[in-house]
Structures are given as C-alpha cells and as structure tokens.
C-alpha cells in the first residue's frame, strides 16, 4: 500500500524510461516530490463540512445539555440566562418516567424488528444463492423495491392496511365473523410498527448479504457437495460463517435504525389514539425541543441516545469479533 516512499518511484523509473525526455532531472524531481498539500486539499471540503455540520452541532448539543435557562431578577423584569447546571438534565432524563417508558417501548419494538429483519434478509439471500431456485430476478427485485419507498410513505400505506375500515386483512377476518384485527391497539401495535421496519429493511440487507455470498469462491462448496452435504448444511455450516462481516454490518445498521425510531409512529399517530405524542424517545425529544422549548432537556435526551448507539454498536462488534476468534480456534 505505502508506495509514497521515493524508492518505489525510482525503482519504476527504468521500466518507464522515456527516451525523448530529460529523464534524470525529471526522475529525481518526481521521486523526491512530496505532494504534501494535495491530500489535504482533496480532503478539505469534506472536513470543513464535517466540522460545521457534525462536530460543532454535536459539541453544541453536549454543551447545552449541561446548562439550563434560569430567570434572574424575578418578576417581569427578570431575564432568562443560560447557566451551567452539570448533570442535572441527565438526572431529569433518567427520572422522567414517560421517557423511560418510551425507551421500554422502543426496546420491545427493536426485539421484534431487528432479529426478524436480519433473519429474513439472511434467509432470502441464502435462497437466492441456491442453484436450483427459480424466479430469482423477480424475487430479488420485488424484495428490494421497499428500499426505494420512504419510511413515511411505507408507514402511510401500512397504516391504511391496518385501519379496520380499509384493511384487506381485517376484511377477511370480518367476513368470516372474527371482527377486525387490532393492528393499531396494544399489544398488536408493536408488531405492526415492527412490520413496517421489517418490510422496509429486509431488501437492502438481503442485497448486502447476497453480494457478500457471491464473493465466496464456488470451489468451497464443491467438496462439501461431493461429500453428500445438503444445500441446507452447506448454507448453515459454510455460507453463514463466511458472511459474518456482512451480518455484523447489517445488525449495526438495523440497531441504529431502531434507536432512531420516529417517522413510523409519528405517521401512524393520526390513525390511532394508542400512539401518544411521547410514544417513542425521539418523539419526546422532538416535543421538548420544539413544543415546550426545553432545549437542554432535549439535548440531554439526544446525547443519551447517541451514547446508547455507540454502546450498542460496540457490543455488536465485540460479540462478532469474539465469535470470529472462537471459530478460528
């Protein structure tokens, strides 16, 4: 990789000797030239944007989370000043029962959505990789379609398919005398919300795992087939361990998506009273920031969420690495 040392250019010189040029002078200059500014100039636009739109906002959010607005002077003459209050907002986050309950709801949702999304993505990817399976192009394309549908639109479509008056599923159950399916009431709501995420996320993850499967040389399966291993055995014992990196990546994406649950419950809110305005943690944080003007509280809540994301991702990576190390032994 590191071909930036001058020796490499010098070594290449005799091969690329160009007779009609003043080769020696040019060679020594090229060999010694350190394009020291170039990589920084190439990186500059990204770094500037990164600092302005990610680093500074992040630092600002953390700073706000340690402050509070206090009235000074009292009465109508009092002015609002921002004062440092240490961890006070964080104590409020962890003593806000509504927020804690919403973290609990998100956990239930995630426990349903994440394993099913990944499980289905892996299942479909493995099926696509089985030689005897038919209608591959159609299935792959159809399962990938939801990726192109925004979360808001997905929630809107499923929302109407859950609503008793317009649901095709409830239409059938009502026709056989069972009454509508309570998609939008507890506890069915968790499954209904998770279903929207599963529908939207399976295709993309399937493609990631599938492309990873395609990268495995076919010879690896040949001897197993000759030994009489079934396609199922090959899939579980050879393919799954080899796509572990892709599975880890998709798991992290799915978990990050879970922690950012917002658009789906917000979209379904007009259709049901079961979803309150503080149903998911992000909904509470949004309310604090833009409806009740409690910016420090919102900043503390979103910092907790960011830390949660980092911890969850680190745990997934750790588990994955430990497994890889264990299987290498």
């Amino acid at each position, binding site marked *: 990789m590191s071909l930036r040392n001058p020796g490499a250019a010098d070594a290449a010189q005799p091969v690329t000797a160009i007779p009609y040029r003043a080769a020696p002078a040019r060679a020594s200059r090229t060999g010694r030239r350190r394009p020291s500014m170039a990589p920084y100039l190439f990186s500059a636009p990204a770094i500037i944007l990164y600092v302005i739109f990610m680093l500074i906002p992040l630092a600002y959010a953390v700073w706000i989370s340690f402050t509070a607005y206090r009235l000074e002077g009292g009465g109508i003459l009092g002015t609002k000043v921002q004062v440092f209050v240490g961890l006070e907002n964080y104590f409020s986050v962890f003593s806000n029962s509504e927020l804690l309950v919403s973290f609990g709801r998100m956990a239930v949702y995630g426990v349903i959505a994440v394993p099913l999304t990944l499980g289905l993505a892996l299942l479909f990817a493995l099926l696509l990789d089985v030689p005897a399976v038919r209608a591959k192009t159609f*299935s792959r394309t159809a399962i990938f379609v939801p990726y192109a549908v925004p979360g808001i639109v997905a929630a809107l479509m499923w929302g109407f398919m859950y609503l008793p008056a317009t649901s095709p599923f409830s239409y059938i159950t009502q026709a056989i005398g069972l009454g509508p399916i309570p998609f939008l009431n507890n506890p069915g709501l968790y499954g209904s919300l998770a279903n929207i995420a599963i529908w939207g996320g399976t295709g993309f993850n399937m493609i990631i795992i599938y492309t990873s499967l395609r990268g495995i040389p076919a010879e690896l399966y040949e001897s197993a087939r000759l030994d009489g291993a079934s396609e199922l055995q090959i899939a579980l014992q050879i393919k799954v361990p080899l796509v572990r990196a892709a599975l880890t990546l998709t798991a992290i994406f799915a978990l990050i998506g879970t922690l950012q649950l917002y658009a789906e419950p917000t979209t379904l809110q007009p259709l049901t009273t079961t979803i309150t305005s503080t149903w998911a943690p992000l909904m509470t944080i949004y309310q604090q920031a833009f409806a009740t003007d409690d910016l420090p509280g919102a900043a503390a809540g979103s910092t907790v969420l960011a830390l949660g994301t980092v911890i969850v991702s680190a745990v997934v990576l750790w588990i994955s690495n430990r497994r890889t190390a264990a299987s290498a032994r």
Partner: protein
Amino acid sequence: MLPTIILIAGAVYCLIPVAWVFVAATKSRAQLFSTFTFAPGTGLIDNLRGLFTYNGGQFGQWALNSLLYAGVGALLSTFVSTMIGYALAKYRFRGQNVIFYGILAGVLIPGITLAIPQYLLLSAVGLAGSVWSVLLPSIISPFGIYLSRVYAGSAIPQETIEAARIDAAGEWRIFQSVAIPMLLPGMVTVFLLQFVGIWNNFLLPYVMLSDQSQYPLTVGLFTLLSKGSSSPALYSLAITGAAVSIIPLVALVLFLQRFWRLDLISGGIKG
C-alpha cells in the same frame, strides 16, 4: 421447490402494500371506506386532479423540491466523498487515520442529536428555513466517504498514479483525468445511496423547514395525512400522493440496479 415458494412469498409480501396503494389511488372518497380494499374504484382521475391542484399545485412543488434536495445534495456529496476517499486511499499523510476514523464514527450519531443543534446554529446565521438548511447538512456522508475510500483503494493501481506523476502531471490533473474515470462505478453507487437517503429523509426537513412551499414530498405527504384526521377528504389525496411519489424512485432504483456496486458495502471488494 420449497425455497422457490418461500422466496416468492417474500416477494409478494413486499409488493402487497405497493399494490394496495395503487388500487386505493383509483378509489373515490366514498369507495375508499366502503368497497373491498383490493377492488379498483372509479376515482383515479378525480384523485389525480385533486392532488395536483391541492393548494395551487403544491404537490408538484414538493416533488420538485425533493428532486432538488436529493439531486443536488447527492451530486455534491458524491464529489466531496470521492475526493476525500481518493486522498485517504492513495496518499500517506499526517492525521490520515484520525480524519478517517473520526468521520466514520459520524455514522453512529443519531439524526436528531444533530438536527436540533444544526437548527439552532443555522438559525443563528439566518439560514434555518431556507433551502440551504436541508441541502448543506445532506452533503456530508460518513458512509459515502467510507465507500469511496474502499473503492478508490481497490480500483486504482498505485502504479497508474506513479506513471502519471512521472509524466509530470499535477496531483489535481491525475485525480481529474486518471482517477475519476476509474472511480465512476463507485461514484454511481455513492450517488444512488445518497439520492435515496436524502429523498427518503424526513426528520431533517421536518425540523428545518416551516414554509410549506419548500417541503419535500415526505414532509408534504405527512402534513396531508395529519390534517386528514380533521378533514378525511385529504386521506384520498395522501394515498394518491403516496402512489404517485413512489413511481419515480422505484423506477430509478430498478433501472439503475445493474450499475450498483453494492458489493462495496459488503466488502466483496478487497480494499
């Protein structure tokens, strides 16, 4: 046989809501709540007329806004990501690893953690509520930068760059006429991922924008739906709008499917 059946069942599951929304878009307001949900109605033309004349043609405006945010944002994002990805893959320089891992960690920051302070900071400079407030934060994409670096690392042989240097080409010129052509497949992938990402984004424009005429489709359709609970006529519009809005993006993704190098993401390319 069973694998094929399972796979087709998955395909049907993924197509059902799409089929439903197209059927529902053909129904008049009365039919929507009265006829069997998969029975086509007779209100398609009325719904489309209603949709495109709503609030003086606002739906068309939203679609154009989405196109602007996603198109321009993804284009700029692709160039910014490609440049830094090339630098990170093909040069050795001080601070390289700090820059790369610092940016990569950005993937983990939830949108809301950034959106609130971004809104406050952009308000301070008077940009909140403007087109820029949605466009500018969309340009930086840690994931796009990661993919660009992986692709540049595998697609451009170091000898090619060295040969160009020996021909005394400047570093910018090498990037422009040697690297870019080799990076194009990777750039298309980054562009599409960013385009779909920005097009589907809801939270950022929802936080930033207050003027309805600047909304992208996602926020616009959400407003139609949330107003629908008080005036049910808007439900038909929201459904028709949903149907119309997914056509271009599904078509784009399906059409460009073969240009995607999604093996980039799974690490199929050795970087």
